[in-house]
């Protein structure tokens, strides 16, 4: 059959084609694609979130450090606002008229830009007092469109450990896109324990679903509450911190920059973690965060920077103990090896030393902190003929360092833990050229200087390892999550590749460094009667004045605590770090201190700005 084509048929045919395309698209969005129905549902049902209380944080003695408090906001639904008495509202809320006018215009502007916001409660006045809240409740009928919103925020009973605990803020866009659990207005932990244990602390939000009518008035439970869910309270954490010790440490570190880390060697539990300057965690609570956060960020001493886990200091003489252990294990050093010291190690560029009796054996070398001795030891390790070349022996040395926990993350539960620095052969290849460097080129490593950096946490862990004679537990700050216990990785002994017997040999030296009165010991200032502190001073050279370091553990026989103290730009280790560390040890072991003069000298010392003096 032949159809006669006339122009009117072509016109109709073309029209039909267009209509066909329209119907096809309609079919797609109405029947095939489900997405639009989902969005529509979200618009029409009112999901009232049930917020769980966040888990509490206790210290190791079950004192509450962080709890919750209820906060109150005034919110508005812009399209419901109609004539109200501004003056009265301001009187009730105790705010200025300008303030309320300004925040109201902000909210209504938003509402003009985005149609949806006009149905939503938006906060206009934040953090009103409970008095204002109750007063407003009584008179709320006078203010159509104004509502109240109650939610829980953090309350800090402790005045210390701000960096360790962290803080919570309202989620931002990133948080929401990273984890779809969060919605606008939720809180999330930032920094410290709050961030690391966010999943445990936050609990689970519940939801009550309502249908709403034309005027956004809640009508009924959706499906009689079948799809509702209850909020589950967050889990309480018991952390390993001894808040008395933490407070005491922060007091000692007043007006000093630096860090104290104290670990219980037998468990790896962190007893105190201080990064100075310290600040009151309440500065970052819901009420004050807005005003204080910027101040803290802009503070030139960077109080938000957690020096204990993030700052990589040259370990200085403390590292001699590590080299001694490596030398012993590699059989290039015995406790009876004597080397003489002529005010330094005068080979090549040389390494200077202070004046002390000579020659010294290994024990004495630790006690007197002889630089020359460790230059010999280090060259013995690196030039060990057992190894084919310097790369093999140097890599072996690195292996030891890594086994001590230097140069890598310890995999702790502390927030923002940093690697520290242990140089690789490549570092020196780049610096000197391949095969162009020798043991003498890297001799600074012998005394913990040069291309090496350890965080206070790593050094403290090393002290705990020595205290345990060869193993450590991964340091951690949380010891129990509401009866569930903690990750088993914190319960496993981690052995280093140095034998126990060798640890015992270096401990003799560390013991004498503190207790060897009159024998040329370097850390006599850390001596406390009957406590058997074993320690090693360090004076870490750097661009400014030296950092004062001291690392120790006590008591010698059955160690209860390992402490590391760094005081930036404060000079020799013996002057500041050693007495601070010994006070910490004394406080923890005996509950009191016996040297009020020393304590007073330290608390009153202001060692800020010393980097400028030079």
């Amino acid at each position: 059959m032949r159809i006669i084509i006339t122009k009117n048929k072509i016109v109709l045919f073309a029209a039909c084609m267009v209509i066909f395309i329209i119907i096809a698209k309609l079919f797609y969005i109405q029947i095939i694609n489900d997405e639009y129905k989902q969005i529509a549902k979200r618009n029409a049902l009112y999901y009232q979130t049930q917020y769980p209380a966040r888990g509490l944080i206790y210290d190791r003695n079950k004192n509450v450090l962080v709890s919750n408090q209820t906060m109150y906001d005034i919110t508005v639904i812009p399209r419901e606002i109609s004539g109200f008495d501004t003056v009265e509202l301001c009187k009730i809320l105790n705010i200025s008229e300008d303030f309320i006018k300004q925040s109201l215009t902000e909210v209504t502007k938003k509402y003009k830009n985005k149609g949806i916001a006009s149905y939503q409660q938006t906060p206009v006045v934040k953090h009103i007092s409970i008095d204002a809240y109750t007063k407003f409740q009584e008179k709320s009928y006078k203010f159509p469109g104004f509502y109240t919103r109650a939610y829980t925020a953090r309350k800090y009973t402790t005045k210390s450990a701000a960096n360790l605990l962290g803080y919570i803020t309202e989620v931002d866009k990133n948080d929401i896109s990273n984890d779809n659990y969060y919605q606008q207005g939720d809180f999330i932990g930032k920094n410290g324990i709050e961030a690391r244990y966010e999943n445990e602390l936050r609990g689970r939000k519940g939801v009550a679903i309502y249908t709403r009518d034309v005027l956004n008035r809640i009508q009924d439970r959706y499906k009689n509450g079948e799809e509702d869910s209850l909020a589950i309270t967050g889990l309480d954490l018991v952390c390993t911190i001894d808040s008395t010790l933490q407070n005491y440490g922060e007091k000692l570190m007043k007006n000093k920059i630096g860090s104290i880390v104290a670990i219980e060697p037998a468990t790896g539990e962190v007893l105190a973690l201080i990064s100075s300057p310290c600040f009151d965690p309440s500065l970052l609570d819901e009420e004050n965060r807005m005003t204080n956060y910027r101040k803290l960020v802009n503070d030139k001493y960077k109080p938000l920077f957690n020096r204990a886990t993030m700052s990589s200091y040259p370990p200085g003489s403390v590292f001699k103990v590590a080299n001694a252990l490596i030398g012993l294990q590699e059989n290039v050093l015995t406790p009876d090896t004597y080397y003489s010291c002529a005010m330094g190690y005068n080979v090549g560029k040389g390494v200077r030393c202070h004046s002390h009796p000579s020659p010294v054996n290994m024990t004495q070398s630790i006690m007197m902190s002889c630089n020359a001795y460790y230059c010999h030891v280090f060259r013995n390790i690196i030039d060990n003929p057992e190894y084919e070349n310097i790369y093999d022996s140097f890599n072996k040395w690195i292996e030891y360092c890594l086994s001590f926990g230097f140069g890598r993350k310890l995999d702790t539960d502390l927030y923002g833990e940093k690697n520290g620095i242990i140089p690789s052969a490549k570092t020196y290849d780049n610096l000197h050229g391949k095969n162009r460097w020798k043991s003498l080129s890297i001799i600074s490593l012998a005394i913990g200087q040069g291309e090496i950096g350890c965080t206070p946490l790593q050094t403290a862990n090393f002290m705990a390892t020595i205290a345990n004679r060869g193993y450590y537990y991964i340091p951690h700050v949380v010891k129990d999550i509401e009866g569930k216990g903690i990750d088993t990785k914190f319960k496993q002994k981690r052995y280093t590749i140095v034998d126990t017997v060798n640890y015992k040999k270096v401990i003799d030296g560390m013991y004498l460094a503190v207790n060897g009165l009159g024998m040329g010991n370097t850390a006599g200032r850390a001596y406390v009667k009957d406590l058997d502190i074993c320690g090693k001073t360090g004076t870490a050279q750097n661009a400014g004045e030296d950092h004062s370091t001291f690392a120790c553990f006590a008591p010698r026989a059955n160690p209860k605590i390992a402490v590391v103290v760094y005081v930036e730009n404060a000079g020799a280790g013996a002057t500041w770090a050693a007495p601070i560390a010994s006070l910490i040890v004394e406080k923890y072991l005996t509950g009191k201190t016996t040297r009020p003069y020393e304590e007073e000298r330290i608390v009153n010392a202001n060692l800020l700005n010393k980097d400028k003096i030079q």
Partner: protein
Amino acid sequence: MKRKKNILQALDWKTITVYIILVCTGWICIYSSVYNVEHSSIFDMSQRYGMQIVWIGTAFLLALFILCLDIKVFTVLSFPLYLITLFSLLFVIFAGTEVNGSKSWLAIGSIRIQPAEFMKIATSLMVAYVISEYGFKINSFTNILKLLVIFIAPIALILMQKDTGSALVFSSFLIMLYREGMSGWIVIGIIYISALFILSLLMPALETVCILTVLTMLIYIVLNSDILWKSIKIAFTFFIGLIIATFIRNEADIKLETQYLILIYVAVFLSMLLIKYHKGRISKLLLVAVFFFSSVFISFSVDYVFDNFLKPHQKDRIEDMLNMKVDLQGTGYNVNQSKIAIGSGGLFGQGFLQGTQTKFNFVPEQSTDFIFCTIGEEAGFAGCLVIIGLYLFLLFRIIIIAERQRFAFTRIFAYCTFGILFFHFAVNISMTIGLIPVIGIPLPFLSYGGSSLWAFTIMLFILLKLDTKRWN
């Protein structure tokens, strides 16, 4: 065969029935889209549904009035009417009221009228009068010039009011011109050039290529209209093949952007056609190929030139002219909400007054330009089909009416009506479902608004009045 009938018998009642159904549906949709509990009386004049009753009532009166006029009025007065409306357009530019960024409203007391709506009728009458004159030949140069002046004057004035949508409606006169003897090539050529430029600027490359592909196949069918069924079959095979090709691309995880896939596919398909089906039709096939690839080339280069060579202020000017900025930012939201509303309708919709998106006024302008959302949400796909069916029926009736005329004047006017109605209908629905960029024109008979309802009513009833005289 010459019969005398009275006007009631001669009236095309089928068209009137569809008209009334559409207008009433429109009112129901408006009621639903602005409904709220506080103002539930249907005669509440502060609400749009209350006002629309007034508009509908007056529209009916207007219809009656037109049916009572002598048909000579339309021919004799076409020129004066055209001039008067043109002047009112000019007047609006200087003294009009601005609504939503376009200064196209004439405020008389509390009533606002949009002269552009009536310009369409006046132009239709004017054109019908000119073309139906004895001795008019559409291909003569002077006549073409005459027509151009008639069209360009109102288009220019409407563009000056920044009412791009209404100006675009004038392109629908091409349908009438095509029917009245203008070569199909000119229609296609004009669509080809203007659409290409606008599409390339407004749309991503992929969508432009898709539209061009569909267009190419339409042209292919038109070109081969002497073997219509065969060419339709080939077009059908083409699209099935394209879907399969896309499917294979997805399954085989080949990293090829869809627009390039389509380009390659078209090239392969056309070469296969050349070998297999088209002995002796090579020139037509080449024409299609040249059309497709040159348009893709032009489209891509328009984008390229726009992005790389134009200075910012030049871009701004073009974007402003095309209303691109306003549309993409302001109504990107509209279209999204509109699609959500229509999409949530499903097969049978949420039911009258139950549409949640409609209730909460999620879609701005829902009672005017986006009235189709209400149908989509509350009556679902089925309801949409009914409404589209009604329009299709109306459009078919108009063609039937057009083709049964003995006087060219009526036929030409009928095709103008067809074109304008079809353009409004297709463009409006397409924009609510995101097929094309937002062009702010109302859906005939359904959208809220006095001007548009009056204008479409007047137009339809002039046609119906003219139709009653088809025997003498």
